[in-house]
């Protein structure tokens, strides 16, 4: 317990060892084990699981089913969140109220959102009743147990996430830059396009990746609000069924690896695109 540094070796970095060991055993090892297991199918050669994945009509289309949900959801969420977050970049009591209100759907989680949606957007719920009373829509109104239901739930839980993340990026940009541009004659639109947007690109790319990855791993709402047998049979449902209904862990691991790979492809694509349109410091903003 003597002063560190005197005896040569500094022991402070070892304080991180317990955390590192924990994550290596319970995070890295399972992932590596899953990868290894996916090449050890119940029967067949090394690649039998992957061959099965791409030849089965129940498995490979899930990649695109999930993509069809995750991509529109992410684009809608970021498309709405960006202008609103930009609008609210100045700290006001109103900003505080809205951010607080938006945290509620995030903390409640997807399962509770699904429970609320089943009644609220259901065939006899308030939304259907209002639409009928106003004669805006004729015939049966189906907003749950289909594609729309899952998309709405992805927006309800994804929009606040995108908004709060973007808000933390927008407020991180030094506001004097915008005012300087205004002094030189830039209007609000020019300020946004030429000053804020370039600085926001890195944050926007990261926000897109996180929002997309989250939407791509949709699970409870796809089961509860969607049609898990058909139109919203997303990839996580396929992985879950393989693991806990057929007890085929190697196949489940292979599907989980494909899910990770699909996410990785999009993330790498977005980050590469960012590098194409924007060259500069990775963290824009203050300083």
């Amino acid at each position, binding site marked *: 317990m003597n002063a560190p540094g005197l005896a040569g070796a500094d022991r*402070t970095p070892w304080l991180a060892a317990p955390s590192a060991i924990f994550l290596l055993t319970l995070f890295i090892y399972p992932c590596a084990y899953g990868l290894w297991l996916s090449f050890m199918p119940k029967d067949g050669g090394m690649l039998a699981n992957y061959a099965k994945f791409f030849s089965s009509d129940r498995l490979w289309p899930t990649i695109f089913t999930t993509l069809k949900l995750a991509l529109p959801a992410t684009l809608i969420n970021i498309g709405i969140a960006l202008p609103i977050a930009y609008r609210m970049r100045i700290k006001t009591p109103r900003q505080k109220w809205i951010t607080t209100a938006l945290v509620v759907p995030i903390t409640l989680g997807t399962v509770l959102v699904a429970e609320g949606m089943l009644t609220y957007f259901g065939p006899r719920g308030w939304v259907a009743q209002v639409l009928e009373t106003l004669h805006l829509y004729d015939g049966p109104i189906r907003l749950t147990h289909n594609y729309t239901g899952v998309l709405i739930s992805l927006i309800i839980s994804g929009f606040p996430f995108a908004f709060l993340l973007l808000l933390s990026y927008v407020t991180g940009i030094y506001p004097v830059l915008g005012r300087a541009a205004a002094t030189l004659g830039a209007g609000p639109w020019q300020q946004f396009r030429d000053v804020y947007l370039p600085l926001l690109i890195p944050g926007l790319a990261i926000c897109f990746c996180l929002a997309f990855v989250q939407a791509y791993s949709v699970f409870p709402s796809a089961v509860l609000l969607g049609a898990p047998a058909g139109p919203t049979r997303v990839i996580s449902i396929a992985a879950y069924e393989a693991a806990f209904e057929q007890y085929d862990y190697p196949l489940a691991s292979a599907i989980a690896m494909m899910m990770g790979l699909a996410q990785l492809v999009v993330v790498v694509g977005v980050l590469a695109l960012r590098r194409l349109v924007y060259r500069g410091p990775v963290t824009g903003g203050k300083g």
Partner: protein
Amino acid sequence: MSTTITTAAGAGAAKRKTSTRFWPRAWNFTLYALMAVFLANVGLMIATVAINSFGKVWRGTWLPQGWTLNWYADAWKEFQLYDLLIVTFEVMFAVVLLSVLLGVPAAYALARRDFRGKRWLLFLFLLPLLIPPITYGIPLATVMYQWHLAGTIWGVILANLIPALPFVILVMTPFIEQIDPNLESAARVFGARTPQIFLYVLAPLLAPGILAAALLVLVRTVAMFELTFLTAGPDSQTLVVALYYAMFAPGVRTSQSVDAMAMVYMAVTLVWLLVALQFVNPTQLVSRVKDHPQPG
């Protein structure tokens, strides 16, 4: 969208100003309207859960016919809410305690020292926050079944620790960075030993940060569905997972008692959220702190 500053001064300037003001205002209005529609729908959606849990029968009318509290008594017995609450609180506090005990020293090391392999360590701590739980949850559950951890409460706690620990580390590292290292050196000069420095110098300074990190982890753990779902057994379910199972088998349970359970879950979550919001910024729930948090 031409709202550039007009250099023209004269008779027409005032008139032009009113006409160019229309679009920014309409845009402003649209943004606030979008936000209002979103918040109103979320609010009404939560209200339907509350109303349904207190209503006798509610089919196709604006409000239920008659009110009752019986669904809560039903749910309490039917779903064994008492046991569920105990498990939920046990998991919650164990995860918070372990993530702080392991995470704060790690954050201290990252904030104070540069060492070989630090980048790799940061990457290791960031990865569980970037990869969604369901992606690594299935291999994790496989391994936990082999180790006979899955199905036990310890399995659930350890699984929930995977995203919680990196979260604490990433919240605490910038917080520790802003504490002046000279304070520790000064204490050492005056003969304080490491435990004393920790107890009398660091702990009081770190307390606000630890409190914030602990509350954020708490709120996130109550709502963590996927990892608990994949690793829990019948006796180690938390409220969210039980709620999912109750919804998954519709018809078996009445929708009102499921909603009563949902209300209990909501109450547990929102109490901690309200406590947390006294100490933290809402944006911290989704991202790590950008600015140094204000102590106190």
